[in-house]
């Protein structure tokens, strides 16, 4: 049975700038994704939700330092969550390569919404249970 692909969306930091993440989440929902909005969440909370919801993609809104993002990815992989990770937000240019090395698809400010949707479809399609 095909179902809508599921994206978990979380803010990695406690900074309250929501505009970007809400626009992206709403765009993904309009494109046919089921969006699980976790809000501000730490590594443990993100892993728990990704497992429980069996999501296809983990979407991170980054408003802080790279170490926090790396901790989340480490924890996801250690707990056996294979879902690919997409990240947006104020990602420092000098960190891009390091995050891409971990397989993260990056969407810094100004990224085109259609590129986000296209990438999300490709990543979800990779898990072979999407109708999109």
């Amino acid at each position, binding site marked *: 049975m095909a179902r809508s692909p599921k994206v978990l969306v979380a803010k990695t930091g*406690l900074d309250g700038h929501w*505009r970007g993440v*809400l626009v992206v989440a709403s765009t993904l929902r309009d494109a046919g994704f089921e969006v699980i909005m976790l809000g501000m969440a730490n590594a443990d909370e993100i892993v728990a939700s990704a497992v429980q919801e069996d999501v296809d993609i983990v979407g991170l809104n980054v408003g802080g330092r790279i170490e926090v993002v790396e901790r989340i990815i480490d924890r996801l992989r250690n707990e056996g969550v294979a879902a690919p990770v997409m990240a947006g937000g104020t990602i420092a240019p000098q960190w891009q390569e390091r995050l891409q090395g971990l397989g993260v698809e990056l969407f810094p400010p100004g990224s085109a919404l259609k590129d986000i949707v296209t990438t999300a479809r490709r990543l979800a399609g990779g898990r072979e249970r999407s109708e999109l």
Partner: protein
Amino acid sequence: MGDWRTSSGIPLKNHYGPEDVPDAYRELSAKGPGEPPFLRGSYPEMYRAQPWRIFQLSGFGNPKDENERIRFLLANGSTGFILEHDRNTADHLYDVDHPDVVARREDVGLTGAVTFSIRDYETILDQIPLESTYGHPGGGVVQHGPFALANYWTVARRRGIELSRLRGTGQSDFFLTYLGCITKQQVPATVGLRFNLDIIEFCTEHMPLWVPVSIAGYNGADTGLNAYQELGALFANAVEYLDGVAKRGRFSVDELARGIGGVNFRGSMDLFEDIAKIRASRKMWHDLLRERYRVTDEKALRLRIHTLTAGSAMTYQQPLNNIARGTIMGLAGVLAGTQSLGISGYDEALSIPSEHAHQMSVRIQAILQHETGIRAVADPFGGSYFMESLTAEVEERAWAFFDEIQDQGGFIASLDSGWLHRKAAENQIDEAQRVASGEKVVVGVNEFTDDLAPFEIGAFEHVSDAWEGAMERLKTIRRERDQRRATETLRELERACRGDGNIMVPMMEAVDAEVTMGEVGAVLRDVFGDWDVPIQF
């Protein structure tokens, strides 16, 4: 010909003539600046008498890092300063050992210094002459406001400065707290209103030169509200304060109104509409106070305005282009007669400002003040057929939005229900789609996208030991302070919270007793609980 409109959708003609100016505005534009209703400026001589204040946000890392940056800015031409606190801890009133902070400890210090006790405020304010410098202690988020103010004021008091002589502004902004930057935990909006009324009353009694709270339409606008919505919502917020103090009955609106009339607007890339917005705001404030509250104090009737350039207009791509954007947005504020101005760093979309970006922001302001001749003439757009027509249109639409908010039950009701969030979200989505379709051009983002090497800059990264440093200081203060006094003052604070005493009185005692921010937060969370965030997703 195309369909030309302002960013909030007001249709624009190719050119304007006398028939486009409403009669009322024709009469008003014949009056001088400093004359009620102040359409043309709050003061008669405007920038000849006093240039606008160069007022930049600043802070990161450890308190001593923030202190160094503020002194750098003051040495480079800033004429006031705004403290930025670490959002992880300050916005949530957490100490650095709170599990939610420990879980992302590397983020700590990235958006401001960690300032959890009076000792940190003493470090941040070291060597800064508070008796002669206009200061903003931070505390943008409502539940943080009383703590930030109490610390700043206590540092001044310890230096022997009478509070009645202290000049500066608080913030405690509802747009930031309940619309723009929603935190993980926050006191309910009705409690936030109580805090703000307490601050307003405290300042009315003790600190006549201090702006108690500053309504920041900026935060509504950068969350999506358009120009006239920003205005309408800002005055709907002001009405909550004015009605609130009237209901308490301790002070008359006449006594308090002046303190509420220090506000903050967003400067965006829509040059003309922003000028119209700020011009209209002065008249609206005057009319609101005169007609609804019968205020006669002329000082109160003059709105004082801070303008901050839109962070959301600054692009990640080709960041040096943002120097031009900062200049244009700042120029709008100045042409409209702002009293104070902050220009975002050109690296705004990447990080908090580097020292270089910060210096650039104050240099742009110096260039505007000293090289352009702009200070010579007040309200240079006054009497322009186009500008008077647009100002009248913005005003009319702003009052209509104000009325819509009243129909929702008022400003706080429109936040509690999520109505205002939906209004902002509609515009956010619409703008994102217009950028996506190319209808709205953003240079370097969806057009002119060749990113040449000279455009590349890195994001500023603060010192990485902010969390460790704060943990050390936390241990030290808990070891060294008079524990009994700390406990007693916290108990007093809790008593005031549960009763109806002014929260600022015990807050001043508590911070003087070296109570920490997390301890204050624990009391507030225990007494008041959490705001029910109305955004459904």
